[in-house]
């Protein structure tokens, strides 16, 4: 391998990339757009959910209950006249929850010797995630409002009160979680996709064969292609970090340098994966199909959005075989919990091991193929 030839090839590749506005746009715009899109989508805050109310009581007490619900801001109550209208609102999804207040609500509430007044809370279980979030709020609100409605002040609460305190992210903001995950997503999916497609395209266009008649070896040719791409993606990491900080207000709490170093190493793993995919694909379309197939588990099983610990045991074990799982865990640890090498070493070691194996395979494949 000659460093001079490699340098020439790298310079050629850089010039070619800079002259191609399409690739350049993709390399810079897509990571940033993905960051902004993903950054906003995860929200734990329940606000402005539509609630249909069938008030059979129509008394000051029931109106008071509704006013309490509306005042909190979590729900926007809307009255309906009939049970059928309430059911329709739930079926067509215009309401996320329903509340049925019985006709004898005020009467039973006023008399302590009677059983407690019963209200019915109905949730749209079809939106399972939403219903799970709404449930906690609605029940607590009804409970709290009911306590103030009873004469003689609130009854002593029966159970234990829990004072939650979230460390590292007191308001349970979804943005930092998603930002750190998006690094994993971009550096896996986008990197593999662009690497695989651009190598296949270059092979189809015949430029590899042209280069092959020069004294350059195939390892040099491929490295000349991969190194600039890797540099570009590492630059993306820095750009994404700045964008997340300036636009979303999410800065890494741990060492930014460690994050960039780990990311650069992870980029080389993805480049190797892209190279391996390109080697088995005859057309760009085939390379994309394969990348998408590889990426489905990358995105869905790596803990990017869906928690790994909720998966069946066998799948949990399988997820440890994806480098992306370890990289996302590392990115989150550094970004959100300010972890350092001292506590992250098991993940780092796993990533290192996968990298050595994958890059080894890729280098061997490079030597074999034109």
């Amino acid at each position, binding site marked *: 391998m000659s460093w001079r030839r490699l340098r020439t090839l790298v310079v050629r590749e850089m010039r070619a990339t800079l002259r191609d506005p399409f690739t350049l746009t993709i390399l810079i715009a897509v990571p940033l757009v993905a960051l902004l899109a*993903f950054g*906003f*989508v*995860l*929200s*734990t*805050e329940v*606000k402005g959910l539509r609630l249909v109310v069938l008030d059979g009581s129509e008394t000051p007490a029931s109106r008071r209950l509704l006013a309490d619900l509306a005042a909190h801001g979590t729900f926007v109550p809307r009255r309906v006249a009939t049970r059928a209208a309430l059911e329709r609102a*739930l*079926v*067509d*999804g215009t309401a996320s929850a329903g509340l049925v207040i019985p006709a004898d609500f005020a009467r039973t509430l006023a008399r302590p010797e009677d059983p*407690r007044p*019963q*209200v*019915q809370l109905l949730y*749209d*279980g*079809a939106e*399972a*995630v*939403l*219903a799970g*979030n709404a449930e906690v709020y609605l*029940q607590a609100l*009804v*409970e709290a*409002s009911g306590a103030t*409605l009873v004469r003689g002040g609130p*009854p002593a609460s*029966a*159970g*234990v*009160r*829990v*004072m*939650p*305190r*979230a460390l590292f992210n*007191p308001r*349970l*903001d979804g943005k930092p*979680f998603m930002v750190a995950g998006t690094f994993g997503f971009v550096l896996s999916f986008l990197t593999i996709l662009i690497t695989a*497609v651009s190598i296949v*395209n270059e092979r189809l266009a015949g430029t590899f064969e042209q280069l092959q008649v020069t004294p350059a070896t195939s390892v040099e040719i491929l490295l000349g292609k991969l190194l600039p791409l890797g540099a570009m993606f590492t630059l993306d990491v820095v750009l994404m970090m700045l964008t997340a900080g300036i636009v979303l207000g999410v800065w890494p709490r741990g060492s930014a340098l460690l994050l960039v170093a780990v990311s650069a190493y992870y980029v080389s793993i993805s480049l190797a994966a892209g190279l391996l995919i390109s080697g088995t694909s005859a*057309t760009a*379309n085939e390379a*994309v*199909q394969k990348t*998408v*197939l590889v990426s489905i588990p990358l995105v869905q099983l790596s803990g990017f959005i*869906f928690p790994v*610990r*909720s*998966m*069946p045991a066998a799948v949990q074990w399988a997820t440890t075989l994806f480098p992306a799982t370890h990289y996302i865990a590392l990115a*989150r640890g550094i970004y*959100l*919990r*300010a972890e350092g090498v001292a506590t992250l070493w098991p993940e780092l070691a796993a990533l290192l091991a996968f990298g050595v194996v994958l890059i080894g395979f890729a280098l061997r494949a490079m030597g074999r193929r034109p």
Partner: protein
Amino acid sequence: MSRFWRNVLAVGYREARVMLHDQAFLIALLVQPAIMLGLYGGVISTQPANVPWGIVDRSQTALSRRLVEDVQASGYFLRPRRVAGYSEAHALLRRGTLLAVLVIPGDFRRAAERGRPRVQLLLDGSDPLAAARVGSYVAQVAANVDVRRELRASRPPRPPARAGAIDARQRFWFNPTLRDRDFFLATIAGMLLTNISLSLTGASLVGEREMGTYEFLLSLPTSALEIVLGKLLPAVAVAYVLLLAALLGSGLCYGFWPAGSWLALFVVTLPFMLASLSVGVLVSTFARTSAQAIFLSTFFILPSFVLSGVGLPYQLMPHGVRELGGLFPLRWYQIASRRIIERGAGGAEVVVPTLMLVLFFAAMLVVVRWRMKPRLG
């Protein structure tokens, strides 16, 4: 039959033959539904499970042990780990070893006797979705611990007070146990169709241009519109095959059948498929190579999945992002399929999403016509 439709059918026939020869495509057609059914049916869930947690029990009384047992019995948690104090709790949370630590104060029992028992729950906020859920589970379990009964063993019984002022009975419609599986399975057809439709039109139209077969088609007595329609025809057929595969797959594998009208589902699929395919056609007018077409499609598919609400509820997204998701056909299709498949709706309830899809398709046709004119004129 008019000349126009004969030409469309001829192009459609040719396209179907080409499709059947493309092995990579056929494999993708088989593998993608299988993967989606497996992932969304059995693997992925947003509900916390196997949550690693710890306890700092400074009270060490029957009451505190009861609270821990009750939380444990909710089924979301692993066995609790004994934690010595705050600094250890903090370290374990930071390392991600634990997701939550319950701190029971030393005066817990005394506070309970006075009627104000309190505990603290430390959560790892770096995983906000899980932290929020776990926090509310623990709060719910704790609120239902019958403190008085636990204390009664050692104290003279008091008259039982009413537990709360209002007895709230809750029920989850359409999905009584709030299974994430149903939530996801209702939309996998939409995801599959989005995936396939873009790769069918975008890449294939550009591919023809690259290979020069497009010029060949144009040299025949067929118009550009006939070619595009002819290309859409087999794609729509593929869409229905995929829809059936998704419905039968989730029915046979998981016993999850559509609760509503199959007919309505088939009807609303047509404008959705046409809308998605027309995005592919639009992509083909921008892309010069099939690689570019693939990139552009991918970057339409991704935001579709994220912003449409198939995996995370769009109702919780901030304004702006939520409305942005309305620009993707998948948003309207997932709304319609949730109504039909999960909530048992018929045609009447999905009129609005269907109209939105038709509107989207019409708008795309206008744009595509305007983009294609200079090239085909």
